[in-house]
């Protein structure tokens, strides 16, 4: 797949953009919520 025979390198190659994409989705959710929960939870 993608010309990468070693599955561990292939995994790293896929995880890099996927983890960045997950961060983007997480961040968009934060931008969209108006909630500011910076009060101390403890």
């Amino acid at each position, binding site marked *: 797949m993608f010309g990468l025979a070693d599955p561990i390198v292939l995994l790293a190659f896929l995880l890099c953009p996927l983890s960045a994409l997950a*961060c983007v989705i997480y961040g968009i959710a934060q931008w969209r919520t108006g909630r500011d929960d910076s009060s101390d939870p403890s």
Partner: protein
Amino acid sequence: MPTVLAVSATDWLVVTLYLGAIAFFAWRGFRTTRNEADYLLAGRRAHPAVMALSYGAAFISTSAIVGFGGVAALFGMSLLWLTFLNIAVGIFLAFVFLGEPTRRMGLRLGAHTFPELLGKRFDSRAIQVFAGLVVFLFMPLYAAAVLAGGARFAAAQLDVGYDAALMLFAAITAGYVIAGGLKAVMAVDTLQGTIMAAAMIVLLVFTYHGVGGVTEGHQALSDLAPMVPESHQAIGHRGWTAMPALGWGSEQYNLGWIIVSTIILGVGIGALAQPQLAVRFMTVSSGRELRKAVPIGACFILLMVGVPYLAGSLSNAWFARHGELITGEIVRTLHDQRGQVELMPMAPGAGGQWEALADQPVRVLLDPDMPRITLDDGRTLRHGRALALHYAGGDPDQIMPRFITAALPGWFGLLFFLSLLAAAMSTLSGQFHTIGSSFGRDVLGVWQRRNNPDHAGGLGAVRLAMLLGLASALTLAFTFRDCFVIARFTAIFFGLCAATFMPAFLGGLFWRRMTRPAAIASMATGFAVSLFWLVLVKAKEASAIGLVQQLTGGQASLLEDIPNWPVVDPILVALPISTLVAALVTCLTPAPDEDHLSRCFPRSAEPAKAPPLAQA
């Protein structure tokens, strides 16, 4: 293939505009700085995008792009695990789980620097001074490495002297840091981060285009595996798209340990306890602002760390397809079907006779379209192309500049040049700022307040300390200009920081029970074990420092005879020990004062937002 940039009038105009923008941000930072929180923490009200880009730009230096790109050309795409760790740990985990407790505790305790945060959390001036001294004394090593890397690149590209480039480079960076504090630093970082990201996008597109596409390029790189140099095969290199051999107890696992321990863990995890990065968590106004910074930080790191690794690795496939032809006699076949051989390079001499150009054969991919040359004595010569390192003259640091000159359009040279200057300056500015604040506020400031509790502090000492840091970094960069050790300074500083600060930093944030003696003991142990490992055991750093050779009569490591230990990063040894010490001493010492803990960890649901601008 020359790598010197042909500087046109347009190029000078772009560079002048770039320097003008830096001067503007310095002036604006100076104008809007009214107190210590402004100067040291950008007023605690930085925009999430600015914080994210500043965090990333401070982390990525010229050597991260050029140096690690060169390392990827040597060792391949297994380094992408570092990119993933940098995104998952260095950005997501750090911003979401580490950033908010750091920001909140810093605000509650009125801490303006990383050493001050540790000192106030454990109610100990000694901790603050010790951490400040570690930063002040050792960060100039890291700054010297960044300074030298940037100056060497600028000198080579513009064809000016190294000394002049060094002085100019340091003066510009120190100028805007000293004048505008962290407000100027973060604003300039944003500009520089944008330039760096744009350059990496172009580099990625042209690299894949040059090797025929994503899958085709990777496949071409995979097919080059038989051409891995023997010296690299011996330490476990199994091709540019394969993980190195992993195991213990034999030289053939050395590369695996270099990649896993030094590069992936040492840099990937070690970045969490970097004072110049941790302090940026305290520059935003709330936890939500930190979380909003996650996508920009992640995409920036994906580009800045991922692209050089991909481009560096794929440069081998590009040169094997498009590099300058090498003609010679086949002395050994590496892979018959793929036309991978060792050629003894030859060229026609003065008398028209073909003569050998070198003593050592070169591993090449034969070009089947080029006609064979049959000599009078019956020998046959073939044409082929070598891997990236050959075209870089054997210097890994030259691989990326050579690749960019050869494979990318001419206009990209200026963008790449600016992006590397930006990478060096943004890292350097963060270092100067941290050095200044560590000494001015955490060492000198504590001493002044000890003698006079009413001493109001002030920024004069911080600015003076920045000049001292600049002077020591410049001295180091001049003194060790041609020495191998300067390339190891970054690893030395990262190694020291991780084990010295991480248990006290993480324990201080997440473990209420952790005590002051435990923090002191773990920092002292982490520092001592890291230093011992770097000076006497880790072969690359130890042999560069030179003490171990004197003590052992020439050995590069105290454990030279035991396989793998000399390539293990100190983070794998010193960090577990300092963590264990922190846990043990905490269990053996009385719990901290509850009143103090209530100041660090509030129980009520009270807000922990940055104060209004007027009070900041």
